Every structure is written in structure tokens, then in C-alpha cells.
């Protein structure tokens, strides 16, 4: 017998705003983590290869905690299929993913990877800081744990932004190109979608509009040291948080989900 659901308009629990929001956070962490993992064995030097792989593992770890929580909520009712962290990560299609578009952008050169990480980590830092004091006990725990990792990710990536920007003529130029490529995907971070608005009203989601200013301030501070100019306001791409992605995500999922889809439930 189906349990009573106070969100009657959402029959399948996976469509509940809280679950959608958790998946948005989880997907962003997983997709960015997967992108970083693509560097494993290809880093510019051994030390940085390990550093970026460590960050990849941190992000996948954050994604796991969030997926496990989402799965628990989904499984509290008998509607829809039972979920696990693996089904959520490996058996959903691109349109069901709610990660930031920024996370799925290709690694490009070291400058693109570094800048993407710096933008995302700074966003995560402010989001998790708010969630660490939100009304959802489980999210506060997850956020508090992730914050320590994210704090290091910002430090690491910010220092690389400064090194590249204030480095050689070529490294500066590459960082400028990375900025032109990635900037249009940053606006989405601060524009709430439906499930976030419900969460903000109910106190379990980060109030992202209020985070744009501190985020921009941190970016500006590091860019000044890196001799880089913050771009003027310009058109911003959105859609990732509601499942409308760039074509890049499909290729990423094809590789990331291959094993689970070709050999379901395989173990080693």
C-alpha cells in the first residue's frame, strides 16, 4: 500500500523538489568529478596528476553521500522503481541529470580545467556553507563534511589561476581563452529553478541569489592577483539544472555509464 505523501502532486518521489535538489547537487559533483578523473594518468606533472585525481575522488565522494540520501527518500514509498546510489548515477539519461552546465564542459587545457574547478568550488563553498545551517539535518551533515574538502579545492585552484594568469605570456593567454569559454556558464549558478525556489521557501536549499555577490567578490580578488579582468555582464546559458544540457553530457555519460549499462550489477 502506498504511503501517504504530503506532496500529492509528485506521485513518483524522485520528482519531489527536495530529491530534485539533492540530485542537482549530486550530479554537479559527480560530473565535475568524472571530468577531473579524465586527467588521471595525463596530468602535466605527476604531482598535479595526483592532485586533480584527489579532487576527482573528493567530488565523487560528495556525490555518493548525496545520491545515498536521495535514494533513501525515493525508497520511502513504493512508487517507481527502487533507487540506489548506483542506479541514480549510472541508469539515468542526460535529460534527467541536473548538474550545472559548467561541470560538464570539456577539460580543454590545464587553464580550462583549473578555471572550471575554481568557479565550481567557490560556488560549492558558498552553497555548502548555507546548507550546513539549513533545516534538513542530513544535508547539514553532508555539507559540513564536504566543506573541508571544498575549502582545499578553492585554495588549490585559486593558486593555479594566479600562477597561470600572472605567469608567462602563453599561460596568461590560455587563461583568458578559458575565461571566454567558461564565463557564459557561470550565471546559471545563481538563477533558481522551481525546485530551488520551493527549497528556499522551506529552508532546505541555499539562497543562491544572495551568493552571487560573495562569489563574484572572491573571483574578483583572485583575478586581480592573476592580472585577469572580470568580464562585463553578458548573455548567460542556462538549462543544466532542469535537464537541458550541452551535447557534451551525452558523450560523457556514454563513457561513464557504459560498464553498468552493458554489464548490469557486475561486481569485482
Amino acid at each position, binding site marked *: 500500500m502506498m504511503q501517504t505523501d504530503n506532496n500529492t502532486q509528485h506521485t513518483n518521489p524522485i520528482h519531489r523538489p527536495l530529491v530534485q535538489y539533492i540530485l542537482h547537487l549530486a550530479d554537479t559533483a559527480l560530473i565535475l568529478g568524472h571530468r577531473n578523473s579524465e586527467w588521471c594518468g595525463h596530468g*602535466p*606533472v*605527476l*604531482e*598535479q596528476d*595526483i*592532485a586533480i585525481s*584527489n579532487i576527482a575522488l573528493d567530488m565523487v565522494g560528495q556525490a555518493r553521500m548525496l545520491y545515498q540520501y536521495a535514494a533513501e527518500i525515493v525508497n520511502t514509498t513504493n512508487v517507481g522503481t527502487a533507487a540506489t546510489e548506483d542506479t541514480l548515477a549510472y541508469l539515468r539519461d542526460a535529460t534527467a541529470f541536473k548538474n550545472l552546465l559548467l561541470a560538464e564542459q570539456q577539460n580543454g587545457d590545464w587553464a580550462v580545467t583549473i578555471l572550471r574547478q575554481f568557479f565550481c568550488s567557490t560556488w560549492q563553498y558558498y552553497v555548502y556553507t548555507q546548507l550546513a545551517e539549513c533545516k534538513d539535518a542530513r544535508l547539514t551533515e553532508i555539507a559540513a563534511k564536504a566543506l573541508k574538502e571544498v575549502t582545499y579545492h578553492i*585554495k*588549490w585552484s585559486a*593558486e593555479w589561476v594566479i*600562477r597561470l594568469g600572472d605567469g608567462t605570456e602563453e599561460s596568461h593567454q590560455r587563461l583568458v581563452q578559458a575565461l571566454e569559454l567558461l564565463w557564459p556558464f557561470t550565471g546559471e549558478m545563481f538563477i533558481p529553478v522551481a525546485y530551488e525556489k520551493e527549497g528556499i521557501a522551506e529552508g532546505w536549499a541555499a539562497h543562491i541569489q544572495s551568493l552571487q555577490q560573495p562569489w563574484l567578490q572572491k573571483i574578483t580578488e583572485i583575478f586581480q592577483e592573476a592580472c585577469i579582468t572580470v568580464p562585463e555582464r553578458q548573455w548567460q546559458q542556462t538549462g543544466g539544472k532542469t535537464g537541458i544540457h550541452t551535447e557534451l553530457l551525452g558523450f560523457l555519460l556514454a563513457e561513464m555509464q557504459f560498464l553498468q549499462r552493458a554489464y548490469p550489477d557486475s561486481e569485482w
Partner: protein
Amino acid sequence: MNTRDIEQSWPLWEVFIRSKQGLDHKHVGSLHAADAHMAIENARDVYTRRMEGVSIWVVESQHIHASNPDDAGSLYDPANDKVYRHPTFYNLPDELTHM
């Protein structure tokens, strides 16, 4: 830039880690980094992934002055037959602990 170029332009650093239980920093290995700051971060990422330490020292390898292996005979062999230098010839009272 290939690895060879980087090895030529980034100096080598020796890394010392103090574990949670340990009182002293122990040499754990070396790595390449552009400066001391990066060396500490690289050491964090390369040598403390499995909870090995709570404190990191780095020093540029070129600042380490080492004894010459060729002198080993004259430096260390003379100590071999001087067992009396070990404090093992004293009778300790039973009340004395932690020795």
C-alpha cells in the same frame, strides 16, 4: 612542456611528514614544485592521501648537505666495537619506569 623540461625547470624538494603519533618529522620522499608553497601542497596531495601526517616540512634538495658514501668506512665503522657506548651496563631500580 614535457616531463623532462619540467624536471629541468622545477626544482626538487625533499618532504618530511610528522604523523599523528610521531614527535619528529620523517623523510618520506621527494617531489618537483615551482616554489615552497607549491611543494607543500604537492606534498599534501602526494604523501598524505592515506592519513599519514598532520604536519609537513619541505626543503629544496639542493640545500641538503650529505656525507660522502666513500667515507662510510672511516665515519661509521669505528663505532662497531664500542658497545660500552650503549647504556646497557647499568642496573636500573625497579621503581624506574619508561626507560
